[in-house]
Each structure stands twice: as C-alpha cells, then as structure tokens.
C-alpha cells in the first residue's frame, strides 16, 4: 500500500524522535542526573513505529523495560516522558514510575514493564475487553526475544488463540536478552520464535525489523485481520540494538565491529531516507527539516526536565488506597 507524503513524514519523524531521544539519553546519563537503570531502544525504531502507525489511540500496546520507543511511537508526550525519566513531578507518572514504567492510558499505552514477559498477558486481556466492546480495537504486545522464553508469554499466546482475540504478539529479536543470544536461549537454535508461535496455532512470520516498510506492511495485514475477528498473529522482527543492554553495559559479549556494522547496514533511519529519496517520495531537505525540529524538541525536553521540580515528599503515600 502506498503511503501518503504525510504518512511518510510522520513515520520518519516518529523514528527520528525515538533515535534522538535515546541518543541524547546516552549522552545525558553519564552526567548523573538520571536515576536508576535505563535501557535504550536505538536501532529498533522501525519496529515500534512500523507497528504503531497501524494503530489508533483506542488501540492498546504493552511494552517492556526497553519502552521509550514504544511510548513515543504510541503517541506519549515526549517532554512528559523525559521529565519522568529524570524523576520529576512533571513526568508522565509524576516521577513515580521512571524509565521502566512510563504509561499513558489515554494514548492506549498500557505501560512499560520491568518484568520480562509482563506485557503479553496484559495485552491479551485488553483484547478481551476489545472483543467484548465490539468496536474493532486491537491490542499489541511488544516483547523481546528473551521474553519469549517466559511461561506467561506462552500462556498468553495459547489463550489468545483459544479465544480468537484481537491481539498481535510482536517479538523484537534484537540479538540479545541481556548478554545472551537467542541462538542459545531459544532452544539452542533448534527452533525459533516463529515456529514456536505457529506451534500455538496462529499465523506467524519473520521480517526485517530495520525496514519500516516491511514491519508496517506485515503488521497492517495482521491488524486488519484482528479488527475484523480474524484472531491473533505473531511476528518476529530482526534487528540489533545499538547500545548495551542497559546504559553502562560493558558489552564484552559482542564482537568488535558488530555495532558499527549494524549502524552501517541496519539503521532504519538511513534505510528509510535512502528508500524514500531514491523513490522520490520525499526530498532530503524534507527529512533534514524533521531532523532539526526533532533535535529542538529533545533539546527542550531535556532542559525542561532538568528545570522541573521533584515531586513533593508527601507524594510517597499518594495513590495507594491507604497508608499505615
């Protein structure tokens, strides 16, 4: 399906925003103002955006510990996210959640999740709500290759097939779960995520996760099917993460040059730019314009986050039903 100029620009802007957001965090984190652990999404942008460009605010996604990209792709406010990551009162969760727990229910973003495998059962449950509501909404679980060894993820796949739910399981195979490759952890390479998902009785396929268009097209079909009662499906999207598992990861498990190679040949932004300019769908300067705007936005987001106040200490007992 041919995307309009607006759609292309939007997709590029979303991917670029994620990249810029993460690359900037990578610079900011060593400065010491960002608390806790942070997991960056750079290198995987085409997946979040390729999936979410098929969704509306009333559709839902669940996410992971590596959730910034998913949040941005699903429309979360970038400044609210940045403030949250800095632990400020102006953050999307008022500073209570942090990087691993950003959520915006009004955008259908049901939360980043620090528990590996936490998301898929939630997405499957949201799909029960959607099925019952009958308005054609869908839920998407974005999850890692590592998460796909976790029991609740399998259970969720079976239950989704069994109840024929409008839910899509998106497994982002970024080459590692922490330091461990799927060639080891996923049945020592005797199977793969696609065969497994098929084993649960749903259509599943593997695509290049660094190519926005292939992610977008594959998911489009599945979303359409789910909206019209056709039930669940699963995808494996391949990519490589550009940074460590968490910021600070020494990454000795990766061969020298792996990231450089990935940045060279598996960069969804470069690939997108090449493709759309070659095909004369957009001009380089359109994209440069987006780049500049995004840079500015992230610049402001960081400045505003740093300037924002911390939540008042008394917030500690707010939003839990009782305090003892």
């Amino acid at each position: 399906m041919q995307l309009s100029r607006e759609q292309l620009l939007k997709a590029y802007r979303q991917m670029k925003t994620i990249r810029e957001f993460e690359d900037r965090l990578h610079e900011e984190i060593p400065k010491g103002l960002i608390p806790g652990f942070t997991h960056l999404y750079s290198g995987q942008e085409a997946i979040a955006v390729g999936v979410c460009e098929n969704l509306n605010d009333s559709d839902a996604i669940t996410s992971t510990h590596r959730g910034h990209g998913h949040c941005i792709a699903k429309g979360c406010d970038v400044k609210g996210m940045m403030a949250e990551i800095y632990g400020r009162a102006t953050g999307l969760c008022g500073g209570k959640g942090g990087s691993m727990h950003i959520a915006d229910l009004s955008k259908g973003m049901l939360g980043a999740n620090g528990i590996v495998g936490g998301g898929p059962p939630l997405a499957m449950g949201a799909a029960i709500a959607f099925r019952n509501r009958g308005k054609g909404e869908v839920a998407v679980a974005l999850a890692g290759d590592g998460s796909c060894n976790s029991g609740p993820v399998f259970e969720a796949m079976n239950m989704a097939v069994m109840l024929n739910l409008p839910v899509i399981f998106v497994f982002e195979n970024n080459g590692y779960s922490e330091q461990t490759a799927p060639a080891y952890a996923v049945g020592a390479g005797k199977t793969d995520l696609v065969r497994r998902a098929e084993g649960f009785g749903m259509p599943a396929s593997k695509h290049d996760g660094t190519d926005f268009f292939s992610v977008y097209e594959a998911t489009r079909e599945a979303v359409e099917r789910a909206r019209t009662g056709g039930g669940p499906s699963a995808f494996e999207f391949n990519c490589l993460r550009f940074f460590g598992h968490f910021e600070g990861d020494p990454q000795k498990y990766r061969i020298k040059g792996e990231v450089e190679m990935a940045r060279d040949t598996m960069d969804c932004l470069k690939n997108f730019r090449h493709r759309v300019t070659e095909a004369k769908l957009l001009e380089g300067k359109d994209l440069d314009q987006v780049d500049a705007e995004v840079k500015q936005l992230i610049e402001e987001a960081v400045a505003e986050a740093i300037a924002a106040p911390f939540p008042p200490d008394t917030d500690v007992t707010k939003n839990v039903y009782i305090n003892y």
Partner: protein
Amino acid sequence: MAIKTYREALTEALMIEMDRDERVIIMGEDVAGGAGGSAGVRDNQNGIFGTYPQFHARYGENRFIDTPISEAAIVGAAAGAALAGLRPVVEIMFADFIGYCLDQIMNQAAKFRYMFGGKSRTPMVLRTAYGAGLSAAAQHSQAIYPMITHIPGIKVAVPSKPADVKGLMLTAMRDDDPVVFFDHKALFGVQGEVPEGDTPIPFGKGMRYREGKDATVVAIGRMVHFSEAVVDKLAKEAGITCDVIDPRTTSPLDEDIILASVQKTGRLIVVDESPPRCSVAGDISAMVAMKGFDFLDAPIQMVTSAHSPVPFAPNLERAYLPSGAKIEEAIRKSVDY
C-alpha cells in the same frame, strides 16, 4: 432477612453486579465447564464449588469465560482487561495456585495505579478458595492471605459470614483497586442471615460478633466461627465474656475497632488459620503492641496453625489447625494472667 448459605450469598453478589454492569466479566478454569466436551453441556457443575448457577446460559460466552490452566495469563489478562475498561472477576480455584500468578498480582495489578502516577485504574477481583479442613493436603489447603496482605496496592477480603461475603463482594466488584477475595472452602455450606437487595459493606470496617468485657478475640475467616463457639461456651460455663471481632478485610484493616475493644478489655487473643510467621495474627498483635500498649493488661496470645505444611491425615490436620481447645486455653491464659 433470609437465611442463605455462604455460597448463595456469594452468587447473589456476583449476579447483582453482572446484571447491573456489563463491564463485569468472570473468568476462570471450568467456571462453566464442559467446553469442547462430548456432551456439549455447559454450566454442568456451576463452577467447582457450585457458585455460578447457570451463569454461562445467563451471561454468555463473552462474559463468562472458561480459561485454560494458565493462572499467570488469566490474572494478567484480568489486569489488562481492567486497564482497558472491563471490571473482571477472576477465579483462581485454590488460593495455593497464587504461586503461579503472584507476579500478575504483586508486580502488575497492585502497582499500576501508583507506578503510573495515579492515572490508571485496575478494577479487578481475584476470588479464590482457601483453607484447611477437607484433607486436601499441603497444596490445596493453605491460608496465604498474609502474603497478599503484605502487598501495598492490593485490598484483601476474608469474609466469615454469608452476609459479609455478599456485602464485601459487592464492594470488591465496585472498587477501582484490585481486590483479592478469599473464600474459605469449608464455609460454602454455612448458613446465616443475608440482607436482601444491594447491600455493599465498606472495606476497612470490622464487625463485632460477640460482646464481652474480659478479653478481645480477633479472628479471621473460618476462625470467627471457631472463636464464637469457644466464647459462647466460656460465657456459659465460666462466666468469662469476650468481644469477638472480625476485621472482615485484612487490608485495609480496621484498627479502631480492635484498639477500642482492647482498651475496654485489656486483653487480646488473635486467632488466624495461617501459620504463625509474618501472619495476620502477628500483624494485628504488633499493631496493638505499638498503638494500644497502654491498654494491655496481659501478654497478647496468638492462636495460629502450626509452622508446617498442611498434613493430609485428618487427625494431623486437626492438630495442625487452631482448635476450640487451643483458643480456650489462650483466652483462659490471658484472662487468668
């Protein structure tokens, strides 16, 4: 008021809310039963404990959902469905199986509201049958409500009487926070007066089931019945009179009703079916030792199950559980102090 069983009272609450609010759904293993079975008969046992009479026929496949044996996915699904606008009631057949879905309770449902800065609701009820007394042995008999009471963000109901089951379940289903609701499996057949109509009971309000002056007996769940019997006997046989207080919800806990009673009697006995360590008995005792110390005229007495798994042989199970004799001994010890 009509006399009804604990089971009937539970059903009544579920039906009131299922009828009133179509966002309420019920999910669980064999709640309807018979799915895919050769006879094609649903509602064939009305749930393992008979709590859902003809619910499948009445509410249909979409609102009354048989699940696979996938406790983690079921509870996770309830939490996700709650975030997406439903108000699920999910059955975990035996409370022991919470071992399979603690994450979804503790790290997901319990935390969303707080972790997301107050911007989400997770209106769901996990109902589950707990407790010993049926020789169901170590993996089907535990009273693990203390572990759940420990978790901030979860409310916990442990009703003892039919009227409380009804009133607390109505409240649970209308609450915007997740609730874990523990029914004692040996109480389903117990009868009591149950008010007609829509009669929710607020959480965090205990009930005094006996009134006395010599000691305060706080009891949880089935232990309320055990305690009432002992207290009635002591009143008759020994002229010792006690308050019997049932907190009804362990979280939030009605501290006031307990402290007021101890202020009057000066003596506290807590009866709890769980094993002793980090139990609700300990929790309530500690609260009184901190906030009601001056009221106390005697050491606090705790009567709990043994610090052991639940044994199978009926005599061992009796020896494991609090008994009338042990409760009586604790009351006498306190009063004689």
